């Protein structure tokens, strides 16, 4: 059920997030409630906006309390005196109540990622006006005659000036009703992201974990910024196959590596479903860079140069460090495909690098 307060609440959320009324941001306060969830203490952030008013300053920090205690005892809660002392471990406070969307936003703000801009005619949404409402103020050209007439009639009947024998109804200013419109955003064209992952034997669990984390965050971030976005997932060893999201994030496989297989599958996918004129296409490939042969690597570069890169917005290659392989693929594509703008590569050795990697992918704002 929707409540009247929802509008006020939404507006408050938007102010807190800094979307509107930036002048109020300087009055933002951030408090917290300490709650309990199971065994854990959790901190619930509570935002507030404090409208300034005349108030007392520092020297008013005093009050009256009730309870035990000698002069000198602390009264503001935490710390000493609670629970058996000595062996107890520090309090673990978990932050909660951040939705994935909000986190993606925070990521965007903290990393200062430029939002990927729809370019040229590839508009993500189109605005459309629909005349669906009624209001008391508006241009005469939108006057709703029937409603205005009814209101006038009603007013006259209430006041007693309506005479059924001489039914003359005079519309006054206060009676007039006007049509009003709403602006509706409708999806116009779309964006697609194709994730490709190397699941060959050389990719250990740790590597796959890194890849999935990064793919997950890219996914969250892009979904946040585009209203309608499609994701396709491809996994490959020596052969490639398109899989669903669930499989992509959970599959375990073994085998050799032939990266070109993934690129070919991606190319097919694009040819079949995603006309580059209408779609923003983003391609991400994650691998340990341990391709089976040099010739396959060269073939990859050829596919990239001649087909993929001409059609898509961005190709991101992310190479994770592997215990086994040479990790040479990144060097090959650097050599063969230098000076190509819409290809970005990054290396990830551990979880901390994911942050930089995502930043590298989106820093150009392509």
């Amino acid at each position: 059920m929707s409540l009247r307060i929802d509008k006020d609440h939404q507006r408050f959320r938007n102010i807190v997030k800094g979307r509107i009324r930036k002048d109020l941001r300087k009055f933002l306060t951030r408090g917290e409630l300490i709650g309990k969830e199971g065994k854990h203490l959790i901190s619930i952030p509570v935002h507030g906006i404090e409208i300034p008013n005349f108030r007392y300053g520092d020297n008013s920090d005093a009050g009256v309390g009730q309870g035990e205690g000698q002069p000198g005892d602390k009264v503001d809660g935490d710390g000493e005196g609670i629970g058996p002392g000595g062996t107890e471990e520090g309090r673990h406070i978990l932050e909660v109540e951040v939705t994935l969307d909000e986190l993606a936003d925070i990521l965007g703000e903290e990393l200062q990622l430029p939002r990927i801009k729809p370019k040229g005619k590839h508009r993500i949404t189109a605005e459309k006006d629909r005349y669906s409402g009624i209001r008391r103020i508006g241009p005469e050209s939108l006057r709703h005659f029937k409603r205005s007439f009814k209101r006038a009639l009603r007013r006259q009947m209430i006041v007693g000036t309506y005479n059924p024998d001489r039914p003359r109804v005079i519309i006054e200013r206060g009676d007039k009703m006007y049509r009003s419109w709403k602006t509706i955003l409708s999806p116009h064209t779309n964006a697609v992201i194709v994730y490709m992952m190397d699941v060959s034997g050389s990719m250990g669990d740790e590597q796959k974990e890194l890849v999935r984390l990064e793919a997950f965050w890219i996914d969250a971030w892009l979904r946040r910024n585009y209203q309608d976005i499609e994701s396709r997932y491809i996994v490959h060893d020596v052969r490639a196959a398109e899989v669903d999201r669930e499989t992509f994030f959970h599959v375990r496989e073994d085998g050799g590596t032939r990266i070109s297989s993934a690129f070919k599958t991606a190319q097919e996918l694009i040819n079949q479903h995603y006309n580059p004129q209408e779609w923003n296409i983003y391609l991400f490939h994650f691998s340990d860079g341990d391709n089976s042969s040099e010739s396959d690597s060269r073939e990859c570069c050829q596919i990239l140069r001649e087909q993929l890169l001409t059609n898509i917005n961005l190709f991101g290659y992310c190479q994770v460090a592997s215990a086994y392989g040479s990790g040479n693929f990144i060097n090959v594509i650097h050599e063969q495909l230098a000076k190509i703008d819409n290809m970005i590569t990054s290396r990830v050795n551990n979880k901390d690098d994911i942050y930089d990697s995502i930043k590298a992918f989106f820093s150009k704002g392509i």
Partner: protein
Amino acid sequence: MVLSTRIKTLSPELAEQTERIAHIARRETLDFFETIFEVLDYDQISQIASYSGFPQRYPHWRFGMEYEQMRKSQTYGLSKIYEMVINNDPCYAYLLADNSMTDQKLVMAHVYAHCDFFKNNTWFAKTNRRMIDEMANHASRIRRHIDHYGYETVERFIDTCLSLEDLIDPYRAFMTREPPRRATTEQDRRNKKRKDEEDVRYPAKPYMDRYINPPRRKKEVSPEDAARATARQVIPVKPHRDILWFLIQHAPLEDWQTDVLSIIRDEAYYFAPQGQTKIMNEGWASYWHSTLMTRYILNADELITYCDHHSGTMATSPGRLNPYKMGIELYRDIENRWNRGRYGKEFEECPDMEIRRNWGQDVKIPERVVGQDSPGRRKIFEVRRVHNDVTFIDEFLTPEFVDRFKLYQYRMDPTTGRMVVVNRDFKKIKQQLLYMLTNHGRPHIYVVDGNYANRGELYLAHKHNGLDLDIRYTTETLKGAYNIWGRPVHMQARIDDEMILFSYDGEQSKQQRLNEKDTPKPAHTI
């Protein structure tokens, strides 16, 4: 009757309980407006609580903020709204749908006492008892302004008004502050009489008056009158605290702005008595829910639940004073003292603690008093009629009480930044309490000159009574005042024992030391 249609939203069991408890409460001589209970789910009750009890308020993000905080603390089980009641005739009160019957009964008993307090406490006497309708009117007026002038324009102006919202004179409703323009003398009266005889006035509506009774040509202007006309009009005539009223009267506002400002002012006046009587009001309601529940209402199987929830409400935590607890204990203390005769000059002046402690111990107190059937009860009924929190504490807080309820004063320790207990001294504690309660813990601000230095600038002043103003907030608030006044605004305040004049002229904020010689003096000093 409205009641019969409204009560349908209550289940038969609840309806029966409301009538039963109302009957019991009336037997105890509680005297309340007709009270209408509504059952709401948690979302609805949170909305209404965010709107301070009303079903409708004007659109503003502040209510959304309240709502979010309320929902969060409820989601994590930190607090829960049990009851809500508004001062209106009829009183409206809300019950939470999934509360147990024990809770509902407790809430009803509590609510009837609140209603009794609203109706009988003299500080509420001047409040609008049709506030539900009034609030809805305010909402639609502000919505209309929003349609005309745009959401953000109106919202910004509301923000500004809210930052000045507590600049009212809570006692204004009870007395006339403005002195008569000029003292009337016998001569004046005779003149007026003669004039009245000369004037023949025809009855006319005010707006037609100028045409139906045109002003007569002035025969001669007396030199006195001429002098009076040219003399500089001093505005305000006397310094006063109703700054919102002053702004409505004198600031160059557009009609819609005046309307918004007067809405904010009306609401501030409506809520003022609730701020003035927090301890008394909650104490009174708790006293009665406790008395009624334990004596008449509870079933045996409900006792544990009741005790759990009652003690939850009365719980105290370090560094926080629970108004429910403070209030209920004070009423009980007063009742006991008056039953035992522990008051008056003789008792007050008795220096022997032993005698004081046993004073009136031998008075036989009837076990179950009904209504005002004992000196103690009569006294607390009188107290609930005439006092507010400040006078309540001033009059009835005793050293014995402070001792028994382990009250202490705390203060921030500047070296650690932590709050620490500083002492348990009766005088200090009482003074601290009165500080916190006087004017709701807010500074007293007066408007002293509306034409400062003859430049149409606004001059406000803080009446210092021990605490300094916060400098940062003062500077920011002055900016808001400037938005309304449209000319430079000043605030005189004592900071660290020096008189400082804070000014904002639309571009920059200034602070200067007030020097007797080279700064122009305002029309009044306070």
